[in-house]
């Protein structure tokens, strides 16, 4: 399975876009008056959080498609399982980037790396949901059952993700809301200037492209791993030493 031309093109495009977005964050977006340079982490912080959410949504959607299509055509449905695992793994990395960049920002603004704020806590629990997803998969040997249980868990796990997102609105939290109105207790809130908003939108789009690119690579890797597994079985059944 050679790497397709489209994928290579997407790699290059993603690389260029990432460089462009980084340049925009540093040279195009104006310096925030109160927070200074550390505010620039915001563009990638939110973008990474967005990709995290998006991947978990993709995993849940693939779970539904898997369960529906596995009845009709189990062999074809395997594809959706691969996409789901790929999305979960990528989502975990981006959600982690989101937490770490948040901590970097919080150190000077909130004067602490971490606080037991509901928003931060629920975001980390979301990470644990998907760690549990990977553990569940590890505990099951039969690939068909693994895919089925994974699908079920990805669906039910996603139920806790909206909770994460809206926790910022039901709790009193110090985490700022940049889109919409802030609560009185929020620390580190600011209003975006047009240039900031443009940079923000670009970061979101670029991170989404990055997500598609990485997802594609991960799906391809899963397909290759399955192929290797099959070849190994074939070789063993032919009495290979």
């Amino acid at each position, binding site marked *: 399975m050679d790497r397709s031309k489209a994928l290579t093109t997407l790699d290059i495009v993603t690389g260029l876009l990432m460089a462009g977005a980084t340049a925009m964050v540093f040279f195009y977006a104006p310096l925030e008056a109160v927070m200074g340079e550390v505010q620039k982490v915001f563009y990638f912080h939110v973008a990474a959080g967005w990709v995290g959410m998006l991947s978990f949504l993709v995993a849940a959607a693939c779970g539904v498609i898997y*369960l529906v299509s596995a009845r009709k055509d189990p062999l074809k449905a395997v594809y959706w399982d691969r996409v789901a695992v790929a999305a979960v793994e990528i989502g975990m990395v981006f959600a982690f980037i989101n937490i770490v960049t948040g901590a970097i920002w919080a150190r000077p603004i909130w004067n602490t790396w971490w606080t037991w704020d509901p928003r931060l806590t*629920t975001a980390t*629990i*979301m990470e*644990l*949901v998907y760690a*549990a997803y990977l*553990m*569940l998969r*590890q*505990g*099951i*040997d039969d690939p068909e*059952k693994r895919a*089925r*249980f994974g*699908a*079920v*868990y990805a*669906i*039910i*796990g996603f*139920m*806790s993700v909206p*909770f994460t997102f809206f926790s910022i609105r*039901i709790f009193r939290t110090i985490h700022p809301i940049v889109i919409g109105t802030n609560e009185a207790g929020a620390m580190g809130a600011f209003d975006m200037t047009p240039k900031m908003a443009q940079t923000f939108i670009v970061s979101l789009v670029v991170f989404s492209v990055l997500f598609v690119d990485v997802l594609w690579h991960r799906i391809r890797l899963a397909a290759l791993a399955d192929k290797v597994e099959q070849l190994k079985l074939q070789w063993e059944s032919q009495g290979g030493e």
Partner: protein
Amino acid sequence: MRENTRFWRSMLAITWKDLALEWRSREILTAMLVFALLVIFIFNYALELTPQTRSEVTAGVLWVTFAFAGTLGLNRSLSVEKDRGCLDGLLLAPVDRSAIYLGKTLANLIFMLVVAAIVLPIYSLLYNTNLFLPGLALVILLGAIGYVAVGTLLSSMAVQARTRDMLLPVLLFPIAIPILLAAVKASSGFLQALPFEEISPWLNLLVVYDVIFISVSFMVFEFVVEE
């Protein structure tokens, strides 16, 4: 209509079977109860539950106790079915799979409520507080419904995995967080006699998650027990 009554009757038959089994062996309830009391005693040492600190942490202590005891019961309730091949028997029966799910869930809910009904008076007695509040009872009912609804589904997955007993808490706790959190907040609201407007958002959240967890688990359960 007849199809409908058949569904409810098979569901109640499964609940009845679990209750009868429990009535004869008393395995699950004894273990859950002893465990729950042990957790409370450990908390007593760990948190130094003096009268001042007590009023604030009571809700937390109660829900951690229920959650831990609940996992114990959930694990046992499904591993019994798996080990002795009863699950296969149930699946062979001409019964809707979601009826099996609801029947098991109802039985687990009853176990959890029985444990709560025994733990609450003991806790009240030991710490000389009054936990007999209608509000708290409502929260425990709503919380237990959500917890057991998703717990029964996840434990039927966990018992089929290699790392079975270890797996259930890992799978269940992060998912049950919205339920546990809302339950703790609402319980402590009732215990501190806060005005109802401050408690009602948490009650709403509990009801919403109860509905979500029951309906989703109800829909996907058949995929979990498929052979």
